[in-house]
């Protein structure tokens, strides 16, 4: 990947966040280039959500210092779709936007996530995956320069998640925002991101470029190598492929201790 000359879209310097007597982030430095897709990995409780909420500016209850430079237009996707149940789907998508073409833009965004024709549905009439696609449309219709997502697929079933991966990758290529995706799914991070950063003990402990070859055995090798590295960094013994489900369990258990 060539070094980008444009100034970074996101610039975080010396970010510290504490909750009453409990330090969570202690000195985060992070740059994200325009259009760059960064996955944030870390054990449970390592402060991933705290970092994301600090960037989103909704961490009113946390104390801290640090410098954050962000693009003006940013969107947040949460783990739950967070649609307002009293508004129809299209109204949810364009909520807070002004202008006379917003409904048209909203319709386009819904079409992009494959939900044409559902504009007038109530949120509760949609499946979980469809609701999350509405949330994606709501994020993208704002044409963000930065997309913040906190485990947006965590509550979805495996198949829907795969579809959402493809969709998110396609749409982020199309709209080209910088993306910070919080996940604790190593494979999700490898498949989606240009870069993976790892949060540990309140600091960014690793920063890996993914650089996947487009196909072939080289790609598989690269994936296996990254997975091995990440497992080691997260403190999981590298498990053979067949047992990766167990490895995921180990990750979670360790994270909680």
């Amino acid at each position, binding site marked *: 990947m060539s070094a980008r000359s444009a100034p970074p879209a996101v610039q975080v310097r010396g970010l510290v966040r504490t909750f009453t007597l409990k330090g969570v982030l202690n000195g985060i430095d992070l740059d994200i280039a325009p259009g760059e897709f960064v996955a944030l990995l870390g054990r449970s409780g390592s402060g991933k959500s705290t970092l994301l909420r600090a960037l989103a500016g909704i961490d009113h209850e946390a104390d801290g210092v640090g410098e954050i430079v962000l693009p003006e237009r940013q969107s947040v996707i949460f783990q739950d779709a967070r649609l307002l149940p009293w508004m129809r789907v299209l109204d949810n998508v364009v909520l807070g936007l002004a202008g006379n073409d917003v409904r048209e833009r909203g319709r386009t965004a819904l079409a992009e996530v494959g939900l044409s024709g559902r504009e007038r549905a109530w949120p*509760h009439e949609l499946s979980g995956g469809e609701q999350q696609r509405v949330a994606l449309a709501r994020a993208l219709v704002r044409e963000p320069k930065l997309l913040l997502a906190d485990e947006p697929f965590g509550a979805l079933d*495996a198949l829907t998640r795969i579809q959402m991966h493809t969709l998110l990758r396609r749409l982020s290529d199309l709209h080209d925002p910088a993306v910070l995706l919080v996940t604790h799914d190593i494979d999700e991070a490898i498949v989606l991101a240009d870069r993976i950063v790892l949060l540990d003990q309140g600091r960014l402990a690793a920063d890996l470029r993914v650089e996947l070859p487009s196909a072939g055995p080289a790609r598989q090798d690269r994936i296996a190598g990254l997975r091995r590295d990440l497992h080691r960094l997260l403190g999981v013994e590298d498990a053979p492929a067949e047992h990766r489900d167990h490895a995921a369990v180990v990750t979670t258990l360790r994270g909680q201790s």
Partner: protein
Amino acid sequence: MNAHSHDLQVPVEVHARTPPPPLAPITQTGRLILRQRLSPGTPARYGILLGPALLLLYWSVLSITGFLDPRILPAPWTAVGTSIELIREGRLQTNLAVSTWRAMSGLGIGVLVGAGLALLSGLSLLGGYVIDGLVQIKRGIPILALIPFMILWLGIGEAMKITLIATAVFFPVYINTHNALRAIDIRHVELAETLGLSRWQFLRRVVVPGSLPGFLTGLRFGVTSSWLALVVVEQLNATSGIGYMVTLARNYAQTDIMLVGLVVYALLGFGSDALVRHLETRLLGWRRTLGK
């Protein structure tokens, strides 16, 4: 296979090459079990009238068979006859109009003030400290205990009557709206923040719809309270209104007119409650609830 490996093509050739075992034939051992439905189902349109109809039937039977002395409680058809007479004389309409006007003004003022103060105290810290504290103290005093003071301050005219009704309406509206406001999902607030909603948009799109169910509950209680307070103030001192009509009839032992008054109160209460419920179904169509 692992859920997230769609792009990873993990070698699985061992399993892939093995022919799948023959499927066991599906045996039909039981019939399809439909789960017991716990929600009572979709209500019929006018099903709510069944209870009142049964009561009316019971009452009629008692009257026909003579179990019910007409001096204690006249028969339903006597009430109908008397109301027709009262309408012909014009007494029922004029008194009804006066009573309805009193109740509606009191209700209107009580709802506006109740909802307004609930918004103020729910959305601003200072408002909460000042207003909510006062309301909680005042809550301990029964409304009717205020009547002597109200008369002292406002006299015995319409102002006192409407103020008392408004006060009776204020509390249920304030308390339910305030509770609903405090229960607004913090996640929706965060969403509003990330979408950059203005204060006004936040109020209109999140706060008001989010607290609407609570407000409507308060409104229903408020409507009931307004009729209750109406009955009390009209017995106190009045020269017009349904309550006046009833008091007058009592002096002459005209049980049929007293009964008409009672029925009118019942119809007013029932009708206005139905109206609020109708409002509820119209405004809360987005909700999925057991009652649907």
